[in-house]
């Protein structure tokens, strides 16, 4: 009894204390990973939305360049030529209005 004692008075860490410490460290690591995953998800979402906005922008410019006819016309000033109106929307429902003159 007491043959394997390291030092008298130094209790050391019990298994239970070590397991509690392990649990706390695991919680910290899990929180860190969760935060990292959230940041990566935000970055990916931002990338997608940025690319989509740019594609819509370029589509709007292509429409104005080609100037197709649309049944939805808009006359900004009385007497002026009507403008053809096109509505572009992304997957989030945000809408862009493209106006272009007739050919």
């Amino acid at each position, binding site marked *: *009894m*007491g043959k*394997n*004692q*390291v*030092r*008298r*008075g*130094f*209790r*050391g*860490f*019990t*298994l239970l*204390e*070590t*397991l509690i*410490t*392990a649990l706390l*460290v*695991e919680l*910290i*690591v899990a929180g*860190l*990973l969760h935060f*990292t995953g959230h*940041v*990566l998800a935000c*970055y990916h979402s*931002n*990338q997608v939305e*940025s690319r989509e906005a*740019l594609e819509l*922008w*370029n589509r709007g*410019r*292509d429409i*104005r*360049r080609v100037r197709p006819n649309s049944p939805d016309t808009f006359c*900004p*000033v009385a007497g*002026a*030529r009507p*403008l053809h109106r096109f509505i572009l929307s992304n997957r989030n429902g945000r809408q862009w209005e493209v106006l272009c*003159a007739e050919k």
Partner: protein
Amino acid sequence: MPKSRGATLIELLISLAIGCVILLAFLGAAVPFQTIAWDLSLLHDRDSSLCLAPLLFCKWISGAGNNRAGHSWDGVQQEGDTLHLKSDTEGQDGFPDGRLKESYESIALRVKGSDLQIRSEGGSFQPAFKNFAGLQVHRADDRLLSLTFEGRTDRSLLSTPAEGSKQVAFKVYLWNYRPNLFEETP
């Protein structure tokens, strides 16, 4: 058995082994986190420049690239790697005065080194954005100007051997390149 009997050797060994495993697990999670944070910081800098550049250049180009009726100069002109845009849009009285003296009536864009530079009128080229690798200009016709910016990260990424370059193409419609809604009189 006394309460303060101390830890037995086997308990201490188990604690040390578990402690090492915990430390390794923490480092194993912290190192990738540090790598990701480093790479994301570089990518964020690159992407913020690539997102901001089209907005600013659309504002400048759509004005300077117009070619109103009766002007002798070309609205859009490319010389080598430099893009020139000219348009008389303002004057001292608030109307076009036939000269290109006002701000952003005549601008030039180019990529030199790793800087995207802009020059207004007779000034010198000033860096507008850093870490740009190239600028490509394409004109589908007189009205539509397509610009492709290539940005890159300030330093190499840790997670991938690539330099982290990315291209952004955006189009600028020169809405007043020809008489548009009403016939213009110079």
